[in-house]
């Protein structure tokens, strides 16, 4: 188990290094100069040059890459070109919104998807099953930003139950914070929950067709008991895979949703930084998001082992 983890960890490190190179290369060729953006349209050439000097933009790209990667390893992500504050502080602030949002959305989607999937699977072919599956088909097909727009119209503008966006800060209390994240989390969770419910259902149905479920039934377990005691845990393996894969989509979705609800999270930071050519922030945030995806994949891999003893033995 330990050796398995170490090996995975090593390849994880390598992919992160490769990702950092890709990110840096891509972003370095982005046209646009942060210094001239900051100084606007009336700035003189010597002013721009002075600012470039001050921002450390006049050393070679390779040197900047090395200092960026080196810095990240020691927790120093550099200093934002436009905000002149340490990137790590900016990310720290934003992550306090993006991370809770991701967790909120993930929990919501799991809370909806598991019962829905299990119910549909256990009543396969019934009206319940058909309606749940129909709903999930629609849920998968709805673009989350459109759904978010509809939610805002209904719950913020008309009913005025939730604020239309923005984030008051966690210092206003947990409930206030969660309330502000509710509509964004719902719009993120909808497609995720739909996919997850479908996977849950089909994994459960597949597992219910396995030989060992038949064995369990021969022991005298009812269909229900066989599902809860035997099929469910085995069905978790594909479900976990999907949860892991979805995390990447969740992050992508969050970038858009944060813009719809003007939440000051990482997604908005990346958009804003791209338009301001705050390259170092873009690089660091993208790197962080990639890191998050890779780490989640890693965690999912470890969870497999918790679910499936066959993987535990493979050390």
């Amino acid at each position, binding site marked *: 188990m330990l050796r398995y983890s170490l090996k995975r960890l090593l390849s994880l490190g390598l992919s992160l290094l490769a990702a950092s190179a890709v990110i840096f290369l891509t972003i370095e060729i982005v*046209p*646009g*100069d*942060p210094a*001239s*953006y*900051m*100084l*606007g*349209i*009336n*700035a*003189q050439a*010597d*002013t721009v040059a*002075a*600012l470039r000097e*001050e921002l450390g933009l006049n050393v070679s790209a390779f040197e900047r890459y090395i200092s960026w990667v080196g810095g990240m390893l020691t927790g120093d992500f550099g200093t934002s070109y*436009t*905000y*002149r*504050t340490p990137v790590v502080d*900016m990310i720290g*602030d*934003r992550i306090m919104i993006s991370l809770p949002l991701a967790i909120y959305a993930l929990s919501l989607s799991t809370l909806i998807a598991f019962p829905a999937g299990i119910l549909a699977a256990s009543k396969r072919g019934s009206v319940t099953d058909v309606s749940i599956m129909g709903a999930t088909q629609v849920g998968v097909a709805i673009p989350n930003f459109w759904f978010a*727009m509809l939610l*805002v119209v209904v719950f*913020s*503008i008309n*009913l*005025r*139950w939730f*604020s*239309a*966006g*923005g*984030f008051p*800060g966690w210092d206003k209390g947990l409930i206030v914070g969660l309330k502000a994240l509710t509509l964004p989390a719902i719009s993120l969770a909808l497609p995720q929950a739909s996919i997850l419910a479908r996977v849950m259902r089909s994994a459960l149905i597949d597992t219910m067709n396995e030989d060992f479920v038949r064995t369990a039934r021969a022991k005298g377990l009812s269909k229900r008991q066989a599902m809860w005691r035997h099929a469910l845990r085995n069905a978790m393996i594909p479900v976990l895979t999907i949860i892991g894969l979805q995390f990447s989509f969740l992050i992508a979705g969050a970038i858009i949703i944060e*813009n*719809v*609800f*003007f939440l*000051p*999270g990482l997604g*908005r*930071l990346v958009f*804003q930084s*791209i*338009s*301001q*050519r705050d390259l170092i922030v873009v690089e660091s945030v993208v790197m962080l998001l990639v890191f998050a995806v890779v780490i989640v994949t890693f965690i999912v891999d470890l969870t497999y082992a918790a679910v499936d003893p066959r993987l535990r033995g493979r050390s």
Partner: protein
Amino acid sequence: MKHFKLRLAIASALAITASLVYAETTDITVGVTLEPPHLDPTGAAAGAIDSVVYANVFEGLTRFAADGSILPALAESWTVSDDGLVYTFSLHSGVKFHDGSSMDSGDVKFSLDRARADDSTNAQKALFSGIDTVEALDSTTVRVTLSAPNGAFIFNMAWGDAVIVAEETIADAKTNPVGTGPFVFTNWVQGDSITITKNTDYWGTPARLNSATFKFISDPTAAFAALMAEDVDAFPIYPAPENLPQFKADSRFQVLIGSTEGETILSTNNKMPPFDNVKVREAMSHAIDRQAIIDGAMFGLGTPIGTHFAPHNPDYVDLTGQSNYDPALAISMLADAGYPDGFKTTLKLPPPSYARRGGEIIAAQLREVGIDVEISNLEWAQWLEQVFRGYDFGLTIVSHTEPMDIGIYARPEYYFQYDSADFQQLMVDLNAATDPDARSTILKAAQQMISDDYVNGYLFQLASATVANANIVGLWHNAPTQATDLTAVYWND
């Protein structure tokens, strides 16, 4: 039914809390579209910085009033030598920075010298380029000597880029601005909001609000929703004119319409064929239906202009007739210029909706006369890179929001590259002239000249719409500069 009751209960609970808050309101939440990159107005061009700190946190020698006129600020009064070269300012005494240190002539000298120094990163360095020397005569007297007369010098000193800062605190001003204004910078939640609170030690008339929060809402939809949900109390330069009728119809809100200094123009690359041909530019000006653009892009908000000058300025000349909408004429003029089948060009659009929407309309109008326009939407940084500094564009739409900026036509390297010796001479004359009548005459001639040369397509003067809670008093109607002056704002209970 049960649900309905519950909903009522929640609604009334909300109403009660809301009314409790209303009872003694001395704070305000103001929506602004752009978050400032940092808070030092002397270190970047971002209008977003001014919209938070101008007049509230930082003050200059002079300042803009709500109607665009110039008022004394830190300078109590000033005298100008007859040759127009020497300005002597006498400062208010007893002015203190927010850190408790006093503001005196030394700070003025520091601020002006810093802005014009070789390593200055001031975005409007040109404002100070005419200064020869700055001398602190005594603690409240400053003498500024110019190298050449400049009729706009007092006006220039009102800009946000010319505010007075202290040498001890300027290094940290980007995150912790220390000024002399009626509000003190308190907190910045990056990506979300900036809070300023009342300066109890203010030298002038104190502010009536205890605190103000600027909330960054870049998305127009979000701005609409935030106002409707009363998450923000006021939204100056409201970004979506299409929503104004709804606010007007809603008694909770007031809508203040005014003008800005933003001449919105179809900037034309005067060096790029076929736009180097004045006939082509003239033909194009007749292909554009300004009213359709104002209706379509701005939902009726905006004043048509025929030259690069603000219509609310007394010296404005209405020249819209010179480029009236006449597509048939445009087609025949194009044919005369040698383009009977039209031509292809690019239209590069920065993010604001006046540009994006206006661009689509102009593209459609130009297509009617045979000009095939390829639209590309750019981020500001790309726009600066490609259009503004790269000259790689045929057409673009941008609103020039700097006040009194007709002088840009005298800069041949300026991105639309209008190079006219006559016009450059006019500007030299203008700077030399100190007599108001003479200045007025020159300005009118300048307007006429660029209109005759069809340098750019002149579209409309950008209007400013402020949406605010109906009980708020004292907000600016017009936007002579990018500022959210809260010094005189209060709640009318």
